[in-house]
């Protein structure tokens, strides 16, 4: 028992143990709620809901009516859970940076590559997240919704997505790191 408690307090688990935990969560989602886990879809349904409130005409498209129906869906609640789950994970290993000075920009490697300014982190984070969400929208899911959930049902799309993700990710890393790659 003490061993388990000590393990929970560790900052970084073995990826195999954490992976088994995520695999069990995916199985439970199908078993208990008959849905697949996902993260990017929830942002789209939320965006659709906000968009419909502001301009019902512009957001009355097939996409926001049928493909990603707007509203508080199962995925949105799950995403809230993900947020607090991440906080819980950080709190148990005492690395929670809520309200600390370097909370938004604490990664040493990021500072070395892009510079120490926090605004750069915010701007790049925002632009990169647009790319992430747009790409996930086209592909039909993100790393969790398409790659892990879809992959566990052996959907070909998951493996095509992984190929594309790694191809462009490696090229981007090559450009960013150049000779330090």
């Amino acid at each position, binding site marked *: 028992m003490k061993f388990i408690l000590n393990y929970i307090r560790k900052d*970084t*688990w073995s*990826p195999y143990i*954490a*992976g088994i*935990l*995520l*695999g*069990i*969560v*995916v*199985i*439970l*989602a*199908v*078993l208990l709620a008959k849905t*697949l886990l996902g993260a990017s879809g929830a942002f789209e349904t939320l965006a659709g809901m906000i968009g419909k409130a502001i301009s019902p005409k512009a957001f009355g498209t097939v996409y926001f009516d049928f493909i990603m129906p707007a509203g508080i869906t*199962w995925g949105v609640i*799950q995403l809230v859970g*993900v947020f*607090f*789950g*991440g906080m*819980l*994970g*950080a709190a148990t290993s005492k690395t929670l940076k809520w309200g600390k000075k370097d909370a938004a920009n604490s*990664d040493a*490697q990021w500072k070395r*590559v892009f510079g120490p300014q926090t605004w750069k982190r915010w701007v*790049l984070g925002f*632009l*990169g997240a647009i*790319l*992430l969400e*747009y*790409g*996930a929208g086209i*592909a*039909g899911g993100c*790393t969790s919704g*398409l*790659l*892990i959930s879809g992959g*566990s*049902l052996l959907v*070909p*799309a*998951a493996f*095509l*997505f992984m*190929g*594309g*993700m*790694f*191809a*462009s*990710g490696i090229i*981007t*890393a090559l450009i960013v790191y150049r000779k330090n*790659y």
Partner: protein
Amino acid sequence: MNFLIAGILGLGFGFSLNKAGLTKYHRIANQFRFKDMMVMKFIMTALAVAMIGLYALRGLGLITFPTAPATYVVGNLIGGLIFGVGMSLVGY
């Protein structure tokens, strides 16, 4: 009730991501530089466990598969290519 399950499963999801270190920029960036294979080990373990579990449960007749993500080769690939740029830059 369904939303309660969603919240609890979300907690487990976020917890495992945090403990695997996927919330840190250097982990994801170094995966694309092949200096740190944690992300790949994590994803593949989760995939293997979920795959075995889901197919076993379907074999026992306890579940039916939910609607799987659709496959449309060009869209999946282009989406993946755009996604990879963002993932490599931001590291989330």
